[in-house]
């Protein structure tokens, strides 16, 4: 039986008569026996368990009172990780993780080549990062620190949901700070801070095939990649020039990896393409609906396609970030009112926050910030 109550803060609180029936967020912190009323232990006749934790899984706290999570047959062979889920750690079963891991190793061995894999149904719709989530689930371990960004922001729906997903299913630590993360899952931005050798960047990819809009048949695009026949892509960029006077592709700008495969860098703004080139961090790409995994190892050449007389150029901005005054970063436009007022702020929220913490002030930051 479940009732919804309202506590002092005005937030609903779920009261469950049987703790086992409630959802217990998994955690890598030790069970906290003293927290909340203990369910079913006959203390003052209270039959309730405080499951506040179930309503705030992002805190990663164990909220089931005195019941140590996941004490079972497997718990007997676990010691220090006794509170970690084992079967379906990070949601996926072991067989699936092995299959994805093998695909990742092939992808690393053949940089830029799209390895088919048996993508699974995930508890989120296609287009919400099922490929990236599967790659992250296959690589992540209990010691990792996960950061998830959605268009550069740590605080948007997709980022918050995926971070919460891995807190629940793997009990991993999460962060919004780029420098602290070991695994960063991203939807379409590369952090402004230069990534380090111990970091892994996981991209959520919608359409992995850069030639798809030019040639819809997978059998044909496979052949084109096999034969390294990429004239079609140059024709597309040339048509941009013929029509607009310049290469008008601004995102998902095609790159050539290590002089061989043409690769879709996922719909990142082309501003981020140079960051992929000889990056110290391993870059993994997962496309769930299209069932493809690919990779760029560290220190690998990633060159944006262009022409001698129309060289590749990244976007530039005429003004600095309105909050932190950063220049040379990718900016988002924010509409301020219905009279044309707008501001440009860092797309990478962590970068902006760190700069403001360091005392940088933009035109619209105000003193209170």
């Amino acid at each position, binding site marked *: 039986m479940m009732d919804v109550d309202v506590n002092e803060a005005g937030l609903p609180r779920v009261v469950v008569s049987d703790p086992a029936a409630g959802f217990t967020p998994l955690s890598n912190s030790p069970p906290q026996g003293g927290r909340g009323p203990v369910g079913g232990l006959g203390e003052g006749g209270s039959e309730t368990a405080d499951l506040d934790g179930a309503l705030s899984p992002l805190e990663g706290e164990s909220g089931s009172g005195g019941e140590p999570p996941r004490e079972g047959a497997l718990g007997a062979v676990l010691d220090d990780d006794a509170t970690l889920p*084992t079967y379906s750690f990070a949601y996926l079963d072991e067989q699936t993780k092995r299959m994805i891991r093998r695909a990742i190793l092939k992808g690393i061995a053949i940089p830029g080549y799209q390895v088919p894999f048996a993508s699974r149904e995930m508890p989120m719709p296609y287009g919400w990062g099922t490929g990236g989530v599967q790659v992250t689930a296959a*690589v992540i371990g209990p010691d990792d620190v996960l950061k998830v960004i959605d268009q550069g922001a740590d605080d948007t729906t997709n980022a918050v949901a995926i971070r919460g997903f891995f807190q629940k299913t793997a009990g991993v630590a999460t962060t919004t700070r780029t420098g602290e993360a070991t695994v960063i899952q991203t939807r379409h931005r590369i952090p402004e801070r230069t990534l380090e050798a111990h970091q892994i960047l996981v991209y959520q990819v919608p359409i992995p095939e850069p030639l798809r809009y030019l040639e819809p048949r997978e059998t044909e695009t496979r052949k084109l990649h096999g034969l390294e026949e990429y004239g079609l892509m140059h024709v597309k960029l040339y048509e941009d020039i013929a029509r607009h006077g310049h290469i008008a592709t601004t995102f998902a700008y095609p790159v050539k990896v290590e002089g061989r495969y043409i690769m879709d860098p996922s719909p990142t703004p082309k501003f981020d393409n140079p960051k992929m080139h000889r990056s110290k961090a391993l870059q993994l790409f997962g496309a769930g609906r299209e069932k493809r995994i690919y990779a760029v*190892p560290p220190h690998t050449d990633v060159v944006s396609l262009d022409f001698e007389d129309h060289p590749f150029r990244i976007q530039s901005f005429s003004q600095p970030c309105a909050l932190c005054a950063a220049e040379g970063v990718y900016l988002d436009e924010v509409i301020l009112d219905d009279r044309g007022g707008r501001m440009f702020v860092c797309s990478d929220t962590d970068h902006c926050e760190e700069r403001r913490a360091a005392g940088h002030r933009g035109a619209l930051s105000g003193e209170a910030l």
Partner: protein
Amino acid sequence: MAAVTAEALEGGFARPVFQTQAVFRVLMAALAEPARPLPLPVEAAPPAPLPPGLGAVALTLLDPDTPVWLDPALAASQPVRAWLAFHTGAPVAAEPMDAAFALVVDPLRLPPLAAFAQGTAEYPDRSTTLVIAVDRFDTDPSAPLLTGPGFEAPRRFRALPERAGFQDQWAANRALFPRGVDVVFVAGGLVAGLPRSTRLAPTE
């Protein structure tokens, strides 16, 4: 079919979820930064002549979907076959060409790399990954200079003695790129990757 012995049942990972993840991360790093020996968490205890390092890699990557080719020294060992069958369920491939993985403990009698699955032009991932036990890694100035994706600067690396003739075979393997085989070398508690993308650095 020989009776299953206790030896076949023991020596697996006690905490497979976390141990396979740890081994995988080292393998991933080894292939992402080739020819750099990395410490391998070796906590498997397979029956001889399968070295613990190869056992740990097998437990991490093999399953019923991956036909495995065993070199003659391993194939002759019933305990090894039984251990692999119990812990991984991987079918044994009769021919190197049919194998997703190959476990090799006698590298001097390794079949030519060209005998293993090379993948196709359209699906170069359909190739064999060789896991080879060696005595040690040489990174001294006499070792060949290697480069490619994953190298910030060329590195010297040799896993097999010159007489194995591996260097010429590797050049031929690289010439097939993106087809070709990948190799994982295991020397005791160290592992080093040699993906097909790694090539001999031009000597000046």
